[in-house]
């Protein structure tokens, strides 16, 4: 298969590039890249653009296959990919959502300022590490019965609240209020449920984390005020997903689709893009299971917030105040949404794999306080650098099916990072900079070192300059909890 070269890419606008349909005869739509020129030079190095071209061949795909500026090579779909297929007969592809269904981020805000509590941060990081189970395959304290598991899969974050692990007021600040109503627990295999039995309230490993940050800079005072953000304020960022349960749902359904594709006469360049029509039996079964796994992830992040709140109270007592949920958003998910495509309002199945929904002002499902300013978009950077809070825009609907980047995006392999980084030294260096890292292993620290990631500032500059989202605030880390 020929590799995408620079000469194959046309410039549409500053920050927007296109591989035309003429690149490969099986492309049904062009493939588009949102990136500044210097990021594009990096992106072209790995196989992500070839993967993007493969996505452009999916049956029923509309307008263009897209990648965000934090794109990197994945398997099947690139990470940072967005694809919308025609509803209801276009395909749904689990590979376009990822194995970690509803991997996502949430941000909690506090009443504390970094300058008032800097001397307590190390203690806080240790307490959080003690409260939040993290690491490879680690289970938590909650062991779900079969009935409880079905409730979690049906009710999502609400289950945590009903059972004393969450706060009612959080619900309004979670995408879809933390619950996809299409979820059907009977579509989730017993093995998947077994894997999820003891993992509620756990972050796992890899790039998942809980991080304490402070607001370093405000770019838009009005939106920051609506979001309840102010300079110097301490906030908590949580990044994790549906854990082993979601991984198993994806594995189970990709296998089913692999066997069903011939029935629907679907032939693909990459097996990992396995897909079936959304309205087929297999498509519906997967969608219902995916929604259930998404609910598990929202419940998981709600339970982790409860653990964070406990640690917060232990260290700061009543003077620490209440940690308020700013927003919780998925970046590995499929949603049914409506867009104007070729002058016609059309329902599509939007796949976001490492991409965040970024809806603008006026979106009715937003909490009232955010309706005038747009949906919060939370962009974690790497430990030791910075993260961002952005606001979605109306324009994102025209450019990227209402989507935005989801992080900094990897640039170095884990092996390369381990070779280049001395983890104990990095941990000490970060500590000298006032960033306390608590991790299960030095290997985990090395793999997730800042050097392994693209420059998050460039990624965010791209989405800001292209008006897909606008910058609201920059966050800087002071404590990082990793698996």
């Amino acid at each position, binding site marked *: 298969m020929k590799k995408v070269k620079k000469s194959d890419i046309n410039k549409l606008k500053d920050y927007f590039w296109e591989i035309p349909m003429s690149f490969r005869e099986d492309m049904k739509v062009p493939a588009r890249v949102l990136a500044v020129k210097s990021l594009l030079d990096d992106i072209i190095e790995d196989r992500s653009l070839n993967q993007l071209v493969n996505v452009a061949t999916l049956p029923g795909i509309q307008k263009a296959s897209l990648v965000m500026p934090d794109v990197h090579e994945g398997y099947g779909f690139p990470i940072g990919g967005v694809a919308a297929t025609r509803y209801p007969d276009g395909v749904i592809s689990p590979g376009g959502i990822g194995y970690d269904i509803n991997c996502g981020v949430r941000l909690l805000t506090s009443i504390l300022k970094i300058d008032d509590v800097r001397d307590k941060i190390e203690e806080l990081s240790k307490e959080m590490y003690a409260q939040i189970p993290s690491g490879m395959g680690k289970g938590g304290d909650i062991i779900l019965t079969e009935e409880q598991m079905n409730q979690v899969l049906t009710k999502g974050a609400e289950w945590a609240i009903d059972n004393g692990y969450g706060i009612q007021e959080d619900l309004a600040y979670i995408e879809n209020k933390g619950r996809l109503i299409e979820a059907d627990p009977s579509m989730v295999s017993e093995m998947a449920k*077994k894997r999820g039995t003891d993992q509620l309230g756990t972050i796992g490993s890899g790039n998942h984390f809980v991080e304490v940050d402070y607001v370093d800079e405000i770019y838009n005072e009005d939106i920051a005020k609506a979001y309840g953000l102010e300079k110097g304020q301490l906030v908590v960022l949580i990044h994790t997903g549906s854990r*082993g349960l979601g991984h198993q749902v994806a594995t189970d359904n990709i*296998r089913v689709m692999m*066997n069903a594709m011939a029935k629907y006469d679907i032939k693909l360049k990459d*097996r990992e893009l396995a897909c079936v029509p959304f309205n087929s039996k297999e498509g519906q079964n997967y969608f219902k299971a995916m929604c259930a796994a998404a609910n598990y992830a929202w419940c998981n992040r709600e339970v982790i917030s409860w653990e964070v709140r406990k640690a917060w109270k232990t260290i700061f007592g009543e003077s620490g105040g209440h940690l308020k949920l700013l927003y919780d958003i998925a970046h590995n998910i499929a949603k049914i949404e409506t867009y104007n495509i070729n002058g016609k309002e059309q329902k599509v199945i939007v796949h976001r794999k490492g991409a965040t929904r970024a809806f603008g002002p006026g979106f009715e499902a937003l909490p009232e306080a955010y309706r005038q300013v747009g949906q919060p978009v939370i962009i974690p950077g790497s430990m030791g650098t910075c993260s961002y809070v952005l606001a979605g825009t109306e324009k994102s609907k025209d450019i990227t099916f209402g989507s935005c980047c989801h992080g900094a995006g990897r640039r170095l392999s884990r*092996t390369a990072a381990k070779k280049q980084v001395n983890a104990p030294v990095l941990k000490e260096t970060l500590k000298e900079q006032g960033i306390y890292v608590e991790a299960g292993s030095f290997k985990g620290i090395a793999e997730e070192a800042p050097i392994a990631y693209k420059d998050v500032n460039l990624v965010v500059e791209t989405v800001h300059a292209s008006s897909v989202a606008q910058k609201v605030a920059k966050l800087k880390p002071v404590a990082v909890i990793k698996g």
Partner: protein
Amino acid sequence: MKIKYLPHTADIRMSIEGETLQNLFKAGVKGMANLLKENTCELTHKFNSKTRIKTCSLDYTNLLIDFLSDVLTYTYTNKTIYCKINILSLEKYKIVADVFGIETNDFDEEIKAVTYHEAEVIKNKNNLWETCIIFDI
């Protein structure tokens, strides 16, 4: 039997080779176990867990990936690293095998999935079975 780990931006790319199809499956299990916990299999001579796995698929590529996915599922549900495989039958495109492992709560790597991406079980010019496997981590 050869196992090599190759660069990949975010995940793990493993290349395996075997004189027979059976050996390719053995290399897959061993290579995955080594990722889950380095050197555990080399240091373990007595296994305390045995699971029978039956898998059938569309072709040998899918069979290998599906089989390793099944091993991975049992790895997490039984909290066991499977090192040794005794293939009871391997035919077009079905496998029945007993896998033997050591129970543990301590993994080096959390593998989310064994993916089909880039996998292709073929006989190479040296008459050896080979494939590449990408693990989502």
